[in-house]
């Protein structure tokens, strides 16, 4: 509202501003200032721009160029332009679709559990006043602090069918060795448990941030209307934190396509009972490091990049969580208004 008023004010004030004798000089000065500002901005951005080019733009461009080359073979060791041949190689590879089927199977099990878990625990914490809620939030966050490999080694201990505190579970399934626990059928469930354990803490904090943003008045009004804690959570809080839940779902979805460490290491301790190319990233790794087929590895990277880029675009433009542009506009209008006043 104020934003509109200020812009309106700025617009109506502008004509009188340009009519005087002084403004021409001021305009000249301000355009000089603008040049100075642009120059300053790019100097400040220089280190980041260099890193952006080196770690993102150039590798992507280079990968695209490589992906269009022909893979060298024993018969013809020279590589050259091969068009989309490598993309055909990748998509036609017998492992390509199975890696995606694996990921989608995992998603079908993991994502709903993850989202329900995040929302339920965040709501429980939000409904808990004071120190107890804070302490619980901290405890739920701890597993998330165990990054990557540490979480994995912890799970090596947990899926140990002999010594794990949940060994009874594995024995109940008839498994007595790692090889018998880590089977293709169990993979989605083991990965779900690993990812849930590691990921949930951070996301509880995110969704909790959303819950804390709900205004006092809304909650009080609902309580005055006689809503109990359950109704409050289900009918008032949940609809209001939808953007955060959507954000969590999409980020986790994107995360699924880049899964590497867990299936890669599970393969290592499974004595070969699961395939080495369980996830798409593992297939890319195999193309690059086992087959030394760089064009195919690059092509697969481009495919994964496009998928995650699509999800990323939805997150950034549709989630409504990155709308800080509005604030910039307000301040710009304020400044304009002040200058013209």
């Amino acid at each position: 509202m104020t934003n509109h008023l200020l812009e309106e004010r700025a617009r109506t004030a502008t004509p009188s501003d340009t009519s005087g004798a002084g403004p021409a000089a001021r305009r000249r000065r301000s355009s000089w200032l603008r040049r100075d500002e642009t120059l300053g901005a790019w100097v400040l951005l220089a280190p980041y721009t260099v890193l952006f080019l080196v770690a993102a733009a150039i590798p992507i461009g280079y990968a695209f160029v490589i992906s269009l080359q022909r893979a060298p073979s024993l018969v013809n060791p020279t590589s050259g332009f091969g068009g989309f041949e490598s993309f055909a190689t990748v998509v036609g590879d017998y492992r390509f679709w199975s890696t995606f089927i694996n990921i989608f199977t995992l998603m079908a099990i993991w994502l709903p559990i993850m989202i329900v878990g995040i929302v339920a625990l965040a709501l429980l914490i939000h409904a808990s006043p004071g120190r107890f809620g804070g302490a619980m939030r901290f405890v739920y966050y701890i597993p998330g602090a165990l990054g990557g490999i540490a979480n994995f080694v912890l799970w090596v201990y947990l899926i140990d069918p002999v010594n794990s505190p949940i060994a009874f579970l594995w024995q109940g399934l008839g498994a007595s060795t790692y090889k018998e626990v880590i089977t293709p059928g169990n993979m989605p469930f083991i990965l779900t448990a690993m990812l849930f354990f590691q990921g949930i803490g951070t996301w509880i904090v995110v969704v909790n941030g959303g819950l804390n943003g709900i205004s006092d008045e809304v909650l009080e009004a609902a309580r005055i209307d006689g809503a109990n804690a359950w109704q409050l959570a289900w009918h008032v809080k949940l609809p209001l934190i939808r953007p955060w839940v959507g954000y969590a779902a999409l980020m986790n979805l994107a995360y699924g396509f880049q899964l590497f460490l867990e299936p890669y290491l599970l393969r290592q301790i499974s004595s070969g009972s699961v395939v080495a190319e369980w996830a798409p990233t593992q297939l890319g790794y195999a193309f690059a490091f086992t087959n030394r087929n760089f064009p195919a590895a690059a092509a697969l990277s481009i495919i994964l990049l496009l998928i995650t880029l699509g999800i990323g675009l939805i997150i950034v433009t549709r989630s409504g969580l990155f709308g800080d542009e509005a604030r910039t506009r307000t301040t710009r209008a304020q400044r304009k208004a002040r200058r013209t006043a």
Partner: protein
Amino acid sequence: MTRVSPNRVSDVTRVVGSHRWNAGRIARIVVMVVIAAAFLLPIIGFIALAFGSQENIESGTSGFLNLGGMSWENIVYSWNQITGFGPGNGGLFQQWMINSAIVSVGGAALALVAAIPAGYAFARLRFRFRKAFLMATLLAMVMPNTVLVIPIFLEVNAINAVGQLWPVAVIMGFYPFGVYLSYIHFMTTMPHELVEAARIDGLSELRTFFEIALPISKQAIALVAFFSFVANWTNFFLPLALLTSSQQNKTISIGIQELIGASPLFNATVAAGLDVKLYLPQLALATVISMVPLLAMFIGAQRFLVRGQTIGAVKG
């Protein structure tokens, strides 16, 4: 992301949570405590495992969650096994820890040098392509970073730098989430009036940044340093692709992978050729030690984290 101060939050929860003891409240607390136990017990058992011995575990005398099998001698024994791993007298484990420190600190330092001024420029300066570049930064931030690893490998391979530490540190220096943190920091703490006033006083854009913006960005510096250090320390795929070819230059995350691969539990052939025995207690100890720097960073940055939690929360 929220506009609510901590005080206000507790007000809200006090209003909402001021129930008397009833069935619903008891159920809520029981559920939360049970879940907390399910989260904590495995970690406690894992840490106790690092203090345990393979003999106790095999004979089943280490007790509930291995808590009965802990001793200092076990730690000394396991430490000797871990540090004895490697050619000659071993010492690879320490080398890996040092390598991780080099790339993590180097990467975090680069991330700071890049992110703080970039965030300021995005937040408070007007220039062409600002919106597009900011958009690209947000996209790079929400995209999982492992999709870029193979392209980065191809790039580093093209300049024949695979197996060296410096490219890893440089790549880790690209930290768009840090730019976003810095951007939000200057958006919320540095009013436009301050920039305008500095300009009227005749300060150049660079001096405005160094003399006015930088001194008030302690919070952003702490957050960027913390989050990037943690991300670098735990990074797995990037070092795996770039450093696997050089055993001496591995980081601890892929080093632990090598330890797992040398365990008699998972690779009897490799393990048979080694002087050291790496069973689960040794692997657990190596993992726990590898987490100590993260713990130290966490304690060091804690007071900034509490304040910055709501901003930090946006990245998964």
